[in-house]
Protein backbone atom coordinates (compact mmCIF):
# COMPACT_ATOMS: atom_id res chain seq x y z
CA UNK A 1 0.00 0.00 0.00
CA UNK A 2 1.16 3.54 -0.84
CA UNK A 3 0.24 6.46 1.36
CA UNK A 4 0.82 10.21 1.22
CA UNK A 5 -0.76 13.41 2.51
CA UNK A 6 -1.93 16.41 0.53
CA UNK A 7 -3.21 19.85 1.56
CA UNK A 8 -6.01 21.29 -0.56
CA UNK A 9 -5.20 24.75 -1.95
CA UNK A 10 -8.28 25.33 -4.11
CA UNK A 11 -10.43 28.10 -2.55
CA UNK A 12 -13.61 26.03 -3.07
CA UNK A 13 -12.10 22.95 -1.45
CA UNK A 14 -12.56 19.50 -2.95
CA UNK A 15 -15.37 20.57 -5.30
CA UNK A 16 -17.43 18.69 -7.84
CA UNK A 17 -15.59 19.08 -11.12
CA UNK A 18 -11.97 18.36 -10.13
CA UNK A 19 -13.16 15.64 -7.71
CA UNK A 20 -15.03 13.96 -10.59
CA UNK A 21 -12.07 14.29 -12.94
CA UNK A 22 -9.85 12.81 -10.23
CA UNK A 23 -12.19 9.79 -10.15
CA UNK A 24 -11.72 9.35 -13.88
CA UNK A 25 -7.95 9.61 -13.54
CA UNK A 26 -7.90 6.95 -10.79
CA UNK A 27 -10.15 4.67 -12.84
CA UNK A 28 -7.35 4.22 -15.36
CA UNK A 29 -5.65 2.02 -12.76
CA UNK A 30 -6.76 -1.19 -11.11
CA UNK A 31 -5.72 0.00 -7.65
CA UNK A 32 -8.22 1.49 -5.20
CA UNK A 33 -7.61 5.08 -4.08
CA UNK A 34 -9.10 6.22 -0.77
CA UNK A 35 -9.17 9.65 0.87
CA UNK A 36 -9.07 9.78 4.66
CA UNK A 37 -9.61 12.75 6.96
CA UNK A 38 -10.77 13.04 10.57
CA UNK A 39 -11.67 9.37 10.77
CA UNK A 40 -13.86 9.53 7.65
CA UNK A 41 -12.95 7.95 4.36
CA UNK A 42 -14.23 7.64 0.79
CA UNK A 43 -13.01 5.97 -2.37
CA UNK A 44 -12.32 8.53 -5.11
CA UNK A 45 -14.80 6.80 -7.44
CA UNK A 46 -17.63 7.58 -5.00
CA UNK A 47 -17.92 11.25 -5.85
CA UNK A 48 -20.89 12.15 -3.62
CA UNK A 49 -19.36 10.48 -0.57
CA UNK A 50 -16.03 12.12 -1.33
CA UNK A 51 -17.69 15.54 -1.55
CA UNK A 52 -19.70 14.62 1.54
CA UNK A 53 -16.44 14.72 3.53
CA UNK A 54 -16.64 18.52 3.12
CA UNK A 55 -12.93 18.96 2.47
CA UNK A 56 -12.03 22.65 2.45
CA UNK A 57 -9.06 24.74 1.42
CA UNK A 58 -6.23 24.20 3.89
CA UNK A 59 -7.47 20.74 4.95
CA UNK A 60 -4.92 17.95 4.79
CA UNK A 61 -6.08 14.56 3.57
CA UNK A 62 -4.35 11.20 3.72
CA UNK A 63 -4.44 9.36 0.41
CA UNK A 64 -4.10 5.56 0.39
CA UNK A 65 -3.56 3.60 -2.80
CA UNK A 66 -3.74 -0.18 -2.80
CA UNK A 67 -3.47 -2.65 -5.66
CA UNK A 68 -1.23 -4.14 -8.33
CA UNK A 69 -0.32 -0.83 -9.94
CA UNK A 70 -0.32 1.25 -6.73
CA UNK A 71 3.03 2.86 -7.46
CA UNK A 72 1.92 4.34 -10.79
CA UNK A 73 -1.58 5.13 -9.55
CA UNK A 74 -0.30 7.00 -6.47
CA UNK A 75 2.00 9.19 -8.52
CA UNK A 76 -0.76 9.93 -11.08
CA UNK A 77 -3.19 10.87 -8.28
CA UNK A 78 -0.60 13.03 -6.57
CA UNK A 79 0.23 14.80 -9.82
CA UNK A 80 -3.46 15.44 -10.48
CA UNK A 81 -3.96 16.89 -6.99
CA UNK A 82 -1.01 19.24 -7.35
CA UNK A 83 -2.18 20.50 -10.71
CA UNK A 84 -5.88 20.88 -9.94
CA UNK A 85 -6.62 21.11 -6.25
Amino acid at each position, binding site marked *: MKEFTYTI*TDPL*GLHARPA*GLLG*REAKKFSSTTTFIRDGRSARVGA*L*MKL*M*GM*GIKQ*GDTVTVQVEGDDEEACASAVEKFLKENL
Partner: protein
Amino acid sequence: MRTAGGIKAAEGIAIGRIRICRASVCDIDDSLTEDTAAELARFEQARIRVQEQQRVLYERARQSAGEESAAIFEAHELMLDDEDLVEACTEIILKQRHRAGYAVQEAFDNAAQMFRDMEDPYFQARSADVVDLKNAMLDVLLGRDTDNEQGTEPFILVAEDLTPSETVKLDKSLLLGFVTREGSASSHTAILARSMNLPALIQCRDISEDWDGKFAILDGYNACLYIEPTQDLVESFTGRRSRDLEKEALLRQLMGASSTTMDGRSVRVFANIGGPDDVDAVLANDAEGVGLFRSEFVYLNSRTDPTEDQQFEAYKRVLKTLAPRQVIIRTCDIGADKTIGYMNLDREENPALGYRAIRICLTRRDFFRRQLRALLRASAFGRLGIMFPMIISLREVRECREILEECRRELEGDGVKISPFEVGIMIETPAAALCADELAEEVDFFSLGTNDLTQYTCAIDRQNAKLEPFSDPHHPAVLRLIRMTVEAARRHNIWVGICGELGADTSLTETFLRMGVDELSVNPGSVLPLRRIIRSLDLSRPVGQALIQEE
Protein backbone atom coordinates in the same frame (compact mmCIF):
# COMPACT_ATOMS: atom_id res chain seq x y z
CA MET B 1 -50.41 47.74 -8.98
CA ARG B 2 -48.73 45.32 -6.58
CA THR B 3 -45.10 45.25 -5.52
CA ALA B 4 -42.89 42.44 -4.30
CA GLY B 5 -39.39 42.51 -2.88
CA GLY B 6 -36.54 40.11 -2.27
CA ILE B 7 -32.79 40.05 -2.54
CA LYS B 8 -30.82 41.52 -5.41
CA ALA B 9 -28.86 38.92 -7.39
CA ALA B 10 -28.14 40.85 -10.59
CA GLU B 11 -28.69 44.46 -11.63
CA GLY B 12 -30.65 45.83 -14.56
CA ILE B 13 -34.22 46.59 -15.61
CA ALA B 14 -36.71 44.22 -17.26
CA ILE B 15 -40.11 45.24 -18.58
CA GLY B 16 -42.52 42.63 -19.92
CA ARG B 17 -44.95 39.84 -19.13
CA ILE B 18 -44.41 37.33 -16.36
CA ARG B 19 -44.21 33.66 -17.17
CA ILE B 20 -44.35 31.23 -14.28
CA CYS B 21 -42.19 28.18 -14.72
CA ARG B 22 -43.74 25.26 -12.84
CA ALA B 23 -41.70 22.36 -11.59
CA SER B 24 -42.67 19.14 -13.30
CA VAL B 25 -44.45 16.80 -10.91
CA CYS B 26 -45.08 13.18 -11.62
CA ASP B 27 -46.12 9.96 -9.95
CA ILE B 28 -43.44 7.36 -9.70
CA ASP B 29 -44.48 3.78 -10.28
CA ASP B 30 -43.62 1.97 -7.04
CA SER B 31 -44.84 -1.46 -8.16
CA LEU B 32 -42.45 -4.41 -8.15
CA THR B 33 -41.18 -6.18 -11.23
CA GLU B 34 -40.08 -9.69 -12.19
CA ASP B 35 -37.82 -8.60 -15.01
CA THR B 36 -35.09 -6.93 -12.95
CA ALA B 37 -32.53 -7.35 -15.75
CA ALA B 38 -34.66 -5.24 -18.10
CA GLU B 39 -35.09 -2.51 -15.46
CA LEU B 40 -31.36 -2.48 -14.83
CA ALA B 41 -30.72 -2.10 -18.56
CA ARG B 42 -33.23 0.80 -18.69
CA PHE B 43 -31.43 2.46 -15.80
CA GLU B 44 -28.07 2.08 -17.51
CA GLN B 45 -29.41 3.43 -20.81
CA ALA B 46 -30.97 6.42 -19.06
CA ARG B 47 -27.71 7.12 -17.24
CA ILE B 48 -25.73 7.15 -20.48
CA ARG B 49 -28.40 9.24 -22.21
CA VAL B 50 -28.37 11.86 -19.42
CA GLN B 51 -24.58 12.01 -19.52
CA GLU B 52 -24.83 12.74 -23.25
CA GLN B 53 -27.41 15.45 -22.52
CA GLN B 54 -25.09 17.02 -19.96
CA ARG B 55 -22.31 17.17 -22.55
CA VAL B 56 -24.68 18.96 -24.96
CA LEU B 57 -25.78 21.36 -22.20
CA TYR B 58 -22.13 21.98 -21.36
CA GLU B 59 -21.38 23.02 -24.95
CA ARG B 60 -24.50 25.17 -25.15
CA ALA B 61 -23.80 26.90 -21.84
CA ARG B 62 -20.15 27.40 -22.72
CA GLN B 63 -21.09 29.22 -25.89
CA SER B 64 -23.89 31.33 -24.42
CA ALA B 65 -22.60 32.04 -20.92
CA GLY B 66 -18.93 31.03 -20.79
CA GLU B 67 -16.76 28.38 -19.17
CA GLU B 68 -17.66 29.32 -15.58
CA SER B 69 -21.39 28.73 -16.00
CA ALA B 70 -20.82 25.63 -18.11
CA ALA B 71 -18.47 23.84 -15.68
CA ILE B 72 -21.40 22.58 -13.63
CA PHE B 73 -22.61 20.37 -16.48
CA GLU B 74 -19.28 18.66 -16.68
CA ALA B 75 -19.56 18.06 -12.94
CA HIS B 76 -23.04 16.61 -13.53
CA GLU B 77 -21.69 14.19 -16.07
CA LEU B 78 -19.05 13.10 -13.56
CA MET B 79 -21.60 12.77 -10.74
CA LEU B 80 -23.45 10.17 -12.79
CA ASP B 81 -20.26 8.09 -12.70
CA ASP B 82 -20.51 7.93 -8.91
CA GLU B 83 -19.89 4.31 -7.92
CA ASP B 84 -22.00 4.46 -4.75
CA LEU B 85 -24.92 6.06 -6.53
CA VAL B 86 -24.91 3.53 -9.34
CA GLU B 87 -24.55 0.73 -6.82
CA ALA B 88 -27.46 2.02 -4.73
CA CYS B 89 -29.74 2.13 -7.78
CA THR B 90 -28.60 -1.33 -8.88
CA GLU B 91 -29.37 -2.76 -5.45
CA ILE B 92 -32.86 -1.26 -5.30
CA ILE B 93 -33.61 -2.81 -8.68
CA LEU B 94 -31.98 -6.22 -8.20
CA LYS B 95 -32.63 -6.87 -4.50
CA GLN B 96 -35.86 -4.96 -3.84
CA ARG B 97 -37.17 -5.66 -7.37
CA HIS B 98 -38.26 -2.05 -7.86
CA ARG B 99 -38.43 -0.33 -11.24
CA ALA B 100 -35.69 2.01 -12.49
CA GLY B 101 -37.68 5.22 -11.87
CA TYR B 102 -38.30 4.34 -8.24
CA ALA B 103 -34.64 3.38 -7.73
CA VAL B 104 -33.49 6.71 -9.16
CA GLN B 105 -35.87 8.68 -6.98
CA GLU B 106 -34.78 6.90 -3.79
CA ALA B 107 -31.04 6.91 -4.39
CA PHE B 108 -30.81 10.47 -5.74
CA ASP B 109 -33.03 11.91 -2.99
CA ASN B 110 -30.72 10.35 -0.42
CA ALA B 111 -27.66 11.90 -2.02
CA ALA B 112 -29.41 15.30 -2.23
CA GLN B 113 -30.31 15.08 1.45
CA MET B 114 -26.68 14.39 2.36
CA PHE B 115 -25.61 17.63 0.66
CA ARG B 116 -28.48 19.58 2.21
CA ASP B 117 -27.24 18.53 5.66
CA MET B 118 -23.72 19.83 5.09
CA GLU B 119 -22.49 23.07 6.66
CA ASP B 120 -20.55 24.59 3.81
CA PRO B 121 -22.79 26.65 1.47
CA TYR B 122 -20.93 25.40 -1.62
CA PHE B 123 -21.69 21.78 -0.78
CA GLN B 124 -25.26 22.60 0.31
CA ALA B 125 -25.92 24.10 -3.09
CA ARG B 126 -24.87 20.78 -4.71
CA SER B 127 -28.19 19.25 -3.56
CA ALA B 128 -29.85 21.25 -6.36
CA ASP B 129 -27.50 19.53 -8.83
CA VAL B 130 -28.48 16.08 -7.60
CA VAL B 131 -32.19 16.97 -7.85
CA ASP B 132 -31.55 18.31 -11.32
CA LEU B 133 -29.92 15.03 -12.34
CA LYS B 134 -32.76 13.05 -10.79
CA ASN B 135 -35.29 14.99 -12.87
CA ALA B 136 -33.26 14.48 -16.01
CA MET B 137 -33.07 10.73 -15.33
CA LEU B 138 -36.83 10.55 -14.69
CA ASP B 139 -37.56 12.56 -17.83
CA VAL B 140 -35.69 9.96 -19.87
CA LEU B 141 -37.13 6.97 -18.02
CA LEU B 142 -40.71 8.25 -18.24
CA GLY B 143 -40.35 9.52 -21.78
CA ARG B 144 -41.40 13.04 -20.81
CA ASP B 145 -41.07 15.82 -23.30
CA THR B 146 -38.53 18.12 -21.75
CA ASP B 147 -38.57 21.02 -24.16
CA ASN B 148 -41.30 23.26 -22.79
CA GLU B 149 -43.45 25.37 -25.02
CA GLN B 150 -41.72 28.71 -24.91
CA GLY B 151 -43.67 30.86 -27.37
CA THR B 152 -42.18 33.89 -29.07
CA GLU B 153 -42.89 36.75 -26.69
CA PRO B 154 -40.09 37.84 -24.35
CA PHE B 155 -40.87 37.28 -20.69
CA ILE B 156 -39.78 37.74 -17.07
CA LEU B 157 -39.28 34.27 -15.69
CA VAL B 158 -40.79 33.55 -12.27
CA ALA B 159 -40.05 30.21 -10.57
CA GLU B 160 -39.58 28.53 -7.21
CA ASP B 161 -35.95 27.91 -8.08
CA LEU B 162 -34.22 27.02 -11.32
CA THR B 163 -32.04 23.99 -11.77
CA PRO B 164 -28.97 24.41 -14.00
CA SER B 165 -30.51 22.30 -16.78
CA GLU B 166 -33.68 24.35 -16.74
CA THR B 167 -31.75 27.57 -17.03
CA VAL B 168 -29.77 26.30 -20.00
CA LYS B 169 -32.80 24.85 -21.79
CA LEU B 170 -34.51 28.25 -21.66
CA ASP B 171 -34.57 30.19 -24.88
CA LYS B 172 -32.20 33.02 -23.88
CA SER B 173 -33.35 35.33 -26.64
CA LEU B 174 -36.75 35.57 -24.93
CA LEU B 175 -35.54 36.07 -21.37
CA LEU B 176 -35.87 39.51 -19.80
CA GLY B 177 -35.06 38.71 -16.18
CA PHE B 178 -35.40 36.21 -13.33
CA VAL B 179 -37.46 36.12 -10.16
CA THR B 180 -37.20 33.12 -7.84
CA ARG B 181 -38.58 32.28 -4.42
CA GLU B 182 -35.45 30.35 -3.41
CA GLY B 183 -31.81 30.62 -4.43
CA SER B 184 -28.80 32.54 -3.19
CA ALA B 185 -26.50 35.14 -4.68
CA SER B 186 -24.16 32.29 -5.66
CA SER B 187 -26.89 30.07 -7.14
CA HIS B 188 -26.89 29.07 -10.79
CA THR B 189 -29.70 31.49 -11.58
CA ALA B 190 -27.76 34.40 -10.15
CA ILE B 191 -24.53 33.46 -11.94
CA LEU B 192 -26.37 32.98 -15.23
CA ALA B 193 -28.24 36.26 -14.86
CA ARG B 194 -25.03 38.16 -14.24
CA SER B 195 -23.22 36.52 -17.12
CA MET B 196 -26.15 37.36 -19.43
CA ASN B 197 -26.45 40.89 -18.03
CA LEU B 198 -30.07 40.33 -17.00
CA PRO B 199 -31.67 41.49 -13.73
CA ALA B 200 -32.46 38.86 -11.11
CA LEU B 201 -34.45 38.99 -7.88
CA ILE B 202 -34.14 36.02 -5.52
CA GLN B 203 -35.85 35.02 -2.29
CA CYS B 204 -39.00 36.75 -3.41
CA ARG B 205 -41.44 35.31 -0.87
CA ASP B 206 -44.60 36.81 -2.38
CA ILE B 207 -44.62 34.85 -5.65
CA SER B 208 -48.18 33.95 -6.52
CA GLU B 209 -49.65 31.74 -9.24
CA ASP B 210 -51.99 34.48 -10.49
CA TRP B 211 -49.04 36.59 -11.67
CA ASP B 212 -48.75 34.37 -14.74
CA GLY B 213 -49.17 36.45 -17.91
CA LYS B 214 -49.35 39.79 -16.07
CA PHE B 215 -47.34 42.81 -17.20
CA ALA B 216 -44.52 43.74 -14.80
CA ILE B 217 -41.35 45.75 -14.22
CA LEU B 218 -38.36 44.10 -12.57
CA ASP B 219 -36.03 46.69 -11.01
CA GLY B 220 -32.85 44.71 -10.41
CA TYR B 221 -31.06 47.74 -8.93
CA ASN B 222 -33.48 47.99 -6.02
CA ALA B 223 -34.63 44.35 -5.84
CA CYS B 224 -38.24 45.26 -6.55
CA LEU B 225 -40.92 43.77 -8.80
CA TYR B 226 -43.93 45.88 -9.84
CA ILE B 227 -46.90 43.80 -11.07
CA GLU B 228 -49.33 45.71 -13.34
CA PRO B 229 -47.40 48.97 -12.82
CA THR B 230 -48.84 52.44 -13.40
CA GLN B 231 -48.17 54.16 -16.73
CA ASP B 232 -45.85 56.68 -15.05
CA LEU B 233 -43.66 53.89 -13.73
CA VAL B 234 -43.55 52.15 -17.11
CA GLU B 235 -42.41 55.36 -18.77
CA SER B 236 -39.76 56.14 -16.21
CA PHE B 237 -38.34 52.60 -16.26
CA THR B 238 -38.44 52.45 -20.06
CA GLY B 239 -36.25 55.56 -20.11
CA ARG B 240 -33.87 54.09 -17.54
CA ARG B 241 -33.66 50.81 -19.47
CA SER B 242 -32.78 52.48 -22.76
CA ARG B 243 -30.07 54.52 -21.05
CA ASP B 244 -28.68 51.25 -19.60
CA LEU B 245 -28.68 49.64 -23.04
CA GLU B 246 -26.92 52.58 -24.63
CA LYS B 247 -24.24 52.55 -21.97
CA GLU B 248 -23.78 48.81 -22.27
CA ALA B 249 -23.49 48.93 -26.08
CA LEU B 250 -21.00 51.76 -25.83
CA LEU B 251 -18.84 49.83 -23.39
CA ARG B 252 -19.03 46.65 -25.44
CA GLN B 253 -17.60 48.53 -28.40
CA LEU B 254 -14.56 49.23 -26.26
CA MET B 255 -13.80 45.53 -25.74
CA GLY B 256 -10.58 44.80 -27.58
CA ALA B 257 -9.99 48.50 -28.33
CA SER B 258 -6.73 50.09 -27.26
CA SER B 259 -6.49 52.61 -24.45
CA THR B 260 -5.02 55.33 -26.62
CA THR B 261 -5.73 59.06 -26.62
CA MET B 262 -6.80 60.86 -29.81
CA ASP B 263 -3.25 62.10 -30.27
CA GLY B 264 -1.80 58.61 -29.97
CA ARG B 265 -0.62 58.32 -26.35
CA SER B 266 -1.18 54.76 -25.11
CA VAL B 267 -1.77 53.99 -21.45
CA ARG B 268 -2.11 50.54 -19.99
CA VAL B 269 -5.41 50.01 -18.19
CA PHE B 270 -4.98 47.21 -15.65
CA ALA B 271 -7.27 45.74 -12.99
CA ASN B 272 -6.88 45.37 -9.21
CA ILE B 273 -7.81 41.96 -7.89
CA GLY B 274 -8.03 40.24 -4.53
CA GLY B 275 -7.78 36.57 -5.43
CA PRO B 276 -7.87 33.87 -8.11
CA ASP B 277 -11.68 34.14 -8.29
CA ASP B 278 -11.43 37.65 -9.73
CA VAL B 279 -9.62 36.45 -12.85
CA ASP B 280 -12.90 36.05 -14.76
CA ALA B 281 -13.76 39.68 -14.09
CA VAL B 282 -10.35 40.74 -15.46
CA LEU B 283 -11.06 38.92 -18.72
CA ALA B 284 -14.74 39.91 -18.94
CA ASN B 285 -13.81 43.60 -18.64
CA ASP B 286 -10.89 43.29 -21.03
CA ALA B 287 -8.27 44.60 -18.62
CA GLU B 288 -4.80 44.63 -20.19
CA GLY B 289 -3.18 43.13 -17.11
CA VAL B 290 -3.30 43.14 -13.32
CA GLY B 291 -1.64 46.14 -11.68
CA LEU B 292 -2.31 45.07 -8.11
CA PHE B 293 -2.95 41.51 -7.00
CA ARG B 294 -3.43 41.67 -3.24
CA SER B 295 -1.76 38.51 -2.03
CA GLU B 296 -3.37 38.80 1.43
CA PHE B 297 -6.12 36.38 0.41
CA VAL B 298 -3.71 33.44 0.73
CA TYR B 299 -3.08 34.45 4.33
CA LEU B 300 -6.61 35.52 5.23
CA ASN B 301 -8.36 32.45 3.80
CA SER B 302 -6.16 29.99 5.62
CA ARG B 303 -6.42 28.87 9.20
CA THR B 304 -2.70 28.24 9.37
CA ASP B 305 0.32 29.91 7.83
CA PRO B 306 0.06 28.91 4.14
CA THR B 307 2.87 26.73 2.80
CA GLU B 308 5.11 27.63 -0.11
CA ASP B 309 3.32 25.05 -2.27
CA GLN B 310 -0.14 26.40 -1.43
CA GLN B 311 0.95 29.91 -2.39
CA PHE B 312 2.72 28.70 -5.53
CA GLU B 313 -0.45 26.97 -6.77
CA ALA B 314 -2.55 30.09 -6.25
CA TYR B 315 -0.08 32.42 -8.00
CA LYS B 316 0.52 29.94 -10.80
CA ARG B 317 -3.20 29.66 -11.49
CA VAL B 318 -3.61 33.41 -11.91
CA LEU B 319 -0.44 33.89 -13.97
CA LYS B 320 -1.24 30.97 -16.26
CA THR B 321 -4.84 32.02 -16.89
CA LEU B 322 -3.95 35.63 -17.61
CA ALA B 323 -0.78 35.05 -19.66
CA PRO B 324 0.55 36.84 -21.66
CA ARG B 325 -0.86 39.73 -19.63
CA GLN B 326 1.36 41.08 -16.90
CA VAL B 327 0.29 40.32 -13.31
CA ILE B 328 1.81 42.47 -10.54
CA ILE B 329 1.60 40.60 -7.25
CA ARG B 330 2.07 42.69 -4.12
CA THR B 331 3.84 40.82 -1.34
CA CYS B 332 2.09 40.33 1.96
CA ASP B 333 0.48 43.56 3.24
CA ILE B 334 -0.98 42.41 6.55
CA GLY B 335 -0.92 44.30 9.83
CA ALA B 336 -2.75 47.60 10.43
CA ASP B 337 -6.44 46.82 9.80
CA LYS B 338 -5.78 43.33 8.42
CA THR B 339 -4.68 41.07 11.27
CA ILE B 340 -4.40 37.31 11.27
CA GLY B 341 -4.63 34.97 14.26
CA TYR B 342 -1.67 32.71 13.52
CA MET B 343 0.66 35.68 12.99
CA ASN B 344 0.36 36.59 16.69
CA LEU B 345 0.66 40.32 16.09
CA ASP B 346 0.40 42.60 19.10
CA ARG B 347 -2.38 45.14 19.39
CA GLU B 348 -1.05 48.56 18.51
CA GLU B 349 -1.97 52.09 19.52
CA ASN B 350 -1.52 53.34 16.00
CA PRO B 351 -1.63 50.42 13.56
CA ALA B 352 -1.53 52.50 10.36
CA LEU B 353 1.90 53.72 11.46
CA GLY B 354 2.84 50.40 12.98
CA TYR B 355 4.26 46.97 12.40
CA ARG B 356 2.86 46.02 9.02
CA ALA B 357 3.59 44.89 5.47
CA ILE B 358 7.27 44.98 4.53
CA ARG B 359 8.20 45.71 8.15
CA ILE B 360 6.81 42.30 9.15
CA CYS B 361 8.38 40.61 6.14
CA LEU B 362 11.86 42.00 6.80
CA THR B 363 11.82 40.85 10.43
CA ARG B 364 10.18 37.46 9.82
CA ARG B 365 12.49 36.34 7.08
CA ASP B 366 11.31 32.72 6.80
CA PHE B 367 7.74 33.87 6.33
CA PHE B 368 8.84 36.34 3.63
CA ARG B 369 11.09 33.81 1.89
CA ARG B 370 8.22 31.32 1.58
CA GLN B 371 6.24 33.88 -0.39
CA LEU B 372 9.17 34.97 -2.54
CA ARG B 373 10.08 31.37 -3.41
CA ALA B 374 6.45 30.66 -4.35
CA LEU B 375 6.40 33.78 -6.54
CA LEU B 376 9.69 32.91 -8.26
CA ARG B 377 8.50 29.36 -8.98
CA ALA B 378 5.25 30.75 -10.42
CA SER B 379 7.18 33.14 -12.70
CA ALA B 380 7.62 30.36 -15.26
CA PHE B 381 3.86 30.30 -15.92
CA GLY B 382 3.21 33.87 -17.05
CA ARG B 383 4.45 37.47 -16.90
CA LEU B 384 5.10 38.25 -13.27
CA GLY B 385 5.78 41.52 -11.49
CA ILE B 386 6.71 41.46 -7.79
CA MET B 387 5.83 44.56 -5.79
CA PHE B 388 6.89 45.47 -2.25
CA PRO B 389 4.46 47.59 -0.16
CA MET B 390 5.02 50.34 2.47
CA ILE B 391 8.55 51.16 1.45
CA ILE B 392 10.12 54.22 3.09
CA SER B 393 13.84 53.78 2.43
CA LEU B 394 16.49 52.65 0.02
CA ARG B 395 17.82 50.22 2.63
CA GLU B 396 14.50 48.36 2.67
CA VAL B 397 14.41 47.98 -1.09
CA ARG B 398 17.98 46.69 -1.14
CA GLU B 399 17.23 44.19 1.62
CA CYS B 400 14.15 42.94 -0.23
CA ARG B 401 16.15 42.50 -3.41
CA GLU B 402 18.95 40.69 -1.58
CA ILE B 403 16.51 38.19 -0.07
CA LEU B 404 14.84 37.76 -3.44
CA GLU B 405 18.23 37.13 -5.03
CA GLU B 406 19.11 34.52 -2.39
CA CYS B 407 15.83 32.73 -3.06
CA ARG B 408 16.49 32.83 -6.78
CA ARG B 409 19.97 31.32 -6.38
CA GLU B 410 18.62 28.54 -4.16
CA LEU B 411 15.86 27.64 -6.59
CA GLU B 412 18.11 27.78 -9.62
CA GLY B 413 20.59 25.59 -7.75
CA ASP B 414 17.79 23.04 -7.41
CA GLY B 415 17.12 23.24 -11.14
CA VAL B 416 13.84 25.20 -10.86
CA LYS B 417 12.99 27.22 -13.95
CA ILE B 418 12.55 30.95 -13.33
CA SER B 419 11.37 33.25 -16.10
CA PRO B 420 12.21 36.95 -16.38
CA PHE B 421 10.08 39.14 -14.10
CA GLU B 422 9.96 42.76 -12.98
CA VAL B 423 10.48 44.09 -9.46
CA GLY B 424 8.76 47.25 -8.27
CA ILE B 425 7.65 49.09 -5.17
CA MET B 426 4.53 50.80 -3.97
CA ILE B 427 4.89 54.53 -3.51
CA GLU B 428 2.41 55.06 -0.70
CA THR B 429 4.37 57.01 1.89
CA PRO B 430 5.48 60.64 1.53
CA ALA B 431 8.99 59.37 2.37
CA ALA B 432 9.05 57.14 -0.70
CA ALA B 433 7.66 59.86 -2.96
CA LEU B 434 10.28 62.33 -1.73
CA CYS B 435 13.10 59.79 -2.21
CA ALA B 436 11.72 58.55 -5.55
CA ASP B 437 14.95 59.41 -7.41
CA GLU B 438 17.11 57.17 -5.22
CA LEU B 439 14.51 54.39 -5.15
CA ALA B 440 14.09 54.43 -8.93
CA GLU B 441 17.72 53.27 -9.26
CA GLU B 442 16.83 49.96 -7.62
CA VAL B 443 13.57 48.90 -9.31
CA ASP B 444 11.81 48.32 -12.64
CA PHE B 445 8.62 50.19 -11.78
CA PHE B 446 6.70 52.31 -9.28
CA SER B 447 3.05 51.93 -8.41
CA LEU B 448 1.39 54.81 -6.59
CA GLY B 449 -0.90 53.64 -3.78
CA THR B 450 -2.92 56.82 -3.52
CA ASN B 451 -5.18 55.73 -0.64
CA ASP B 452 -2.34 55.39 1.86
CA LEU B 453 -0.37 58.21 0.26
CA THR B 454 -3.33 60.54 0.89
CA GLN B 455 -3.86 59.29 4.43
CA TYR B 456 -0.19 59.68 5.36
CA THR B 457 0.29 63.02 3.60
CA CYS B 458 -2.79 64.70 5.06
CA ALA B 459 -2.65 62.86 8.42
CA ILE B 460 -6.26 61.84 7.91
CA ASP B 461 -7.34 58.38 9.00
CA ARG B 462 -9.39 57.11 6.08
CA GLN B 463 -11.52 54.89 8.34
CA ASN B 464 -12.67 57.86 10.45
CA ALA B 465 -15.95 59.26 9.10
CA LYS B 466 -15.70 62.36 11.31
CA LEU B 467 -12.74 63.55 9.26
CA GLU B 468 -14.78 63.64 6.05
CA PRO B 469 -15.16 67.48 6.06
CA PHE B 470 -11.38 67.87 6.30
CA SER B 471 -10.42 65.43 3.59
CA ASP B 472 -9.79 66.44 0.02
CA PRO B 473 -9.11 63.57 -2.37
CA HIS B 474 -7.48 66.04 -4.78
CA HIS B 475 -5.31 67.71 -2.15
CA PRO B 476 -2.54 69.63 -3.95
CA ALA B 477 0.12 68.08 -1.68
CA VAL B 478 -0.86 64.59 -2.83
CA LEU B 479 -0.93 65.61 -6.50
CA ARG B 480 2.51 67.18 -6.11
CA LEU B 481 3.92 64.01 -4.56
CA ILE B 482 2.44 62.03 -7.46
CA ARG B 483 4.03 64.40 -9.95
CA MET B 484 7.43 64.15 -8.23
CA THR B 485 7.21 60.36 -8.33
CA VAL B 486 6.27 60.28 -12.01
CA GLU B 487 9.05 62.71 -12.91
CA ALA B 488 11.63 60.65 -10.98
CA ALA B 489 10.46 57.51 -12.79
CA ARG B 490 10.83 59.32 -16.14
CA ARG B 491 14.36 60.47 -15.31
CA HIS B 492 15.40 56.90 -14.52
CA ASN B 493 13.54 55.28 -17.43
CA ILE B 494 11.29 53.07 -15.34
CA TRP B 495 7.53 52.84 -15.76
CA VAL B 496 5.06 54.23 -13.24
CA GLY B 497 1.44 53.34 -12.52
CA ILE B 498 -1.36 54.25 -10.14
CA CYS B 499 -3.22 51.48 -8.32
CA GLY B 500 -5.15 53.45 -5.69
CA GLU B 501 -8.64 54.83 -5.95
CA LEU B 502 -7.46 58.00 -7.67
CA GLY B 503 -6.56 55.86 -10.69
CA ALA B 504 -10.26 55.37 -11.42
CA ASP B 505 -11.13 59.02 -10.77
CA THR B 506 -11.89 60.14 -14.32
CA SER B 507 -11.69 63.82 -13.38
CA LEU B 508 -7.95 63.24 -12.92
CA THR B 509 -7.25 60.99 -15.91
CA GLU B 510 -6.10 63.84 -18.13
CA THR B 511 -3.91 65.26 -15.35
CA PHE B 512 -2.22 61.89 -14.84
CA LEU B 513 -1.68 61.34 -18.55
CA ARG B 514 -0.12 64.76 -18.93
CA MET B 515 2.19 64.00 -16.02
CA GLY B 516 3.36 60.90 -17.88
CA VAL B 517 1.73 58.02 -15.98
CA ASP B 518 2.16 54.76 -17.94
CA GLU B 519 -0.42 52.56 -16.28
CA LEU B 520 -3.70 52.92 -14.37
CA SER B 521 -4.93 49.95 -12.36
CA VAL B 522 -8.58 50.07 -11.28
CA ASN B 523 -11.43 47.78 -10.22
CA PRO B 524 -12.38 45.48 -13.11
CA GLY B 525 -15.73 47.26 -13.53
CA SER B 526 -13.97 50.61 -14.07
CA VAL B 527 -11.68 49.39 -16.86
CA LEU B 528 -13.98 50.07 -19.82
CA PRO B 529 -15.38 53.42 -18.55
CA LEU B 530 -11.77 54.55 -18.01
CA ARG B 531 -10.75 53.37 -21.48
CA ARG B 532 -13.61 55.43 -22.90
CA ILE B 533 -12.33 58.58 -21.18
CA ILE B 534 -8.75 57.95 -22.35
CA ARG B 535 -9.91 57.54 -25.95
CA SER B 536 -11.73 60.89 -25.79
CA LEU B 537 -8.67 62.86 -24.61
CA ASP B 538 -6.44 64.90 -26.87
CA LEU B 539 -3.20 65.80 -25.11
CA SER B 540 -1.93 67.85 -28.06
CA ARG B 541 -4.57 70.48 -27.28
CA PRO B 542 -3.89 73.17 -24.64
CA VAL B 543 -4.72 72.26 -21.08
CA GLY B 544 -8.49 72.26 -20.65
CA GLN B 545 -10.54 74.03 -18.04
CA ALA B 546 -11.55 70.81 -16.34
CA LEU B 547 -7.97 69.86 -15.71
CA ILE B 548 -7.08 69.78 -12.07
CA GLN B 549 -3.94 71.74 -11.34
CA GLU B 550 -1.94 71.12 -8.26
CA GLU B 551 -0.47 74.62 -8.17
